[in-house]
């Protein structure tokens, strides 16, 4: 479970930007949650704090009762590798590596057995319906296929939480549908906890809950 208490994030500058002004929320294991709101509401900022790729100015984040903000930078890196998965908006694959190599990279970094992680990466690509694209390079894949490879990569280390930062923002309607249905399937069949930032209202139908943000504050939670 993720528990967030009074999370604040201020970007310093001549005129400081108060991106999060005190957000508290909970996400239970196995949920598929969307963070929505208008541009500048603080959606991505919240996701970055939850995913430990940015440091909040104030507040606490507990992931399965671990106060993750008390971890050192090196421990956070290890925690991300072992427990968290990421799907970014675009261009998140390594161009010089095949789909299979991109997927097993986090497992390789985790120190997994050589034969084991290759086999698991291939299985993961089959799960996202790319079993026939193992040896293709990113530029040989469509945008939707690239995002599905990114999903497979995010799942290779069996993370507790999968974070997706506007994963379909740059995809056409059909590809978006395929990726979102895949995330929904992973949530339903594998009980994968997913937190996704999106700005498309129609994406609500794929998730269990929507957390609405407005001007850096929690506006409402919609089931």
């Amino acid at each position, binding site marked *: 479970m993720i528990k967030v208490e009074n999370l604040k994030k201020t*970007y310093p500058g001549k005129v400081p930007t108060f991106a999060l002004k005190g957000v508290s929320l909970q996400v239970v294991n196995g949920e598929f949650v969307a963070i929505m709101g208008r541009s500048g509401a603080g959606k991505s900022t919240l996701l970055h704090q939850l995913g430990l*790729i*940015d440091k909040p100015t104030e507040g606490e984040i507990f992931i399965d009762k671990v106060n993750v903000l008390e971890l050192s930078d090196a421990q956070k*890196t290890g925690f*991300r*590798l072992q427990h968290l998965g990421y799907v*970014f908006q675009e*261009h998140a694959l390594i161009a010089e590596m095949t789909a299979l190599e991109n997927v097993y990279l986090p497992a390789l*970094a985790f120190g997994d057995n050589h034969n084991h992680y290759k086999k698991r990466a291939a299985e993961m690509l089959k799960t996202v319906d790319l079993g026939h694209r193992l040896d293709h390079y990113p530029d040989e894949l469509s945008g939707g296929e690239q995002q599905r490879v990114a999903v497979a990569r995010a799942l290779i280390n069996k993370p507790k939480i999968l974070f997706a930062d506007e994963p379909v923002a740059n995809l056409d309607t059909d590809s978006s549908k395929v990726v979102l249905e895949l995330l929904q399937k992973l949530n339903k069949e594998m009980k994968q906890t997913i937190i996704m930032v999106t700005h498309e209202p129609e994406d609500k139908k794929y998730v269990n809950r929507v957390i609405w943000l407005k001007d850096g504050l929690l506006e409402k939670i919609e089931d």
Partner: protein
Amino acid sequence: MSARIVGIDPDEENKVLKLADHMVSGEYLDGINSDEIVLGADTAGGYGEAPEGDLGGVKVGDEVQVNYSNTITRIYKVKGIYKIGFYSGLGIISSQEAESILSVHDSASQIFVKVNLDQDTIDNYLESVKGIAPNLEMRKYSDLLGEEEPIITALDAIALVVSAVSVVVAAITIFALIYVNAYSKRRQIGILKAIGIKQRVTVYSYIFQSIFYTLCGIIVGSVLVFLLIGPFFESHPLELPMGDVSLAFSSVMIFVSILSLLVAGILAGLIPSWRVAKQNILKAIGRV
């Protein structure tokens, strides 16, 4: 005219000074015939202006009369004429002939010793010999150079400066390569960090890359120096007033050069990759 006559053992001399490689006419002594002499070109004459006078153009096969200071007079057949970059003014006879002139046996007034500087320093060699023969007067080659020593020192200094500049240029080149490479992939590096790849893994990969570039440079440089430039200067030495100058290498010098290049290469890879790898993840992936 007056000239200095030395007696040598041709076989032993050839291991050290190799005058036999500098014959411009005739042959070098073979140590068999005691009535033969090898003359320096400046003594024989006919090889340019001689600073201290000459014999007016003596040829191989001519006979020369030598009046020694101990009143002994001998006539020798000129077997060969040598010329080196320095003053070529010696008359060279066999050591047996010199001993008979001086009425001595199994003794020498000078011994030239060639040492291997790859194994030890010249000062340590001097110390070792001093331990065996404390009363022996010993001089380093540089002590015998006289007016030429500052030139040798200057050439050594130039070589040192050129080496240092080469290392700096190599380091700057590798730095630029790695920086451009790492900077153009900063988003990729940011994503790798975001998914949990340790920063040091990225840095190590760039250090390996810079070591690869350095090794390539060392290999290309070695091929150029040992297979092209070195042999070229060996066969076409620079003709300076003090003598012919070609490239000289010692294994210590090569080791130091390679080591300094590797250190410079590693630093040139470490600094830019570390700077890019430590960048904030959100900045790197363009989300700020």
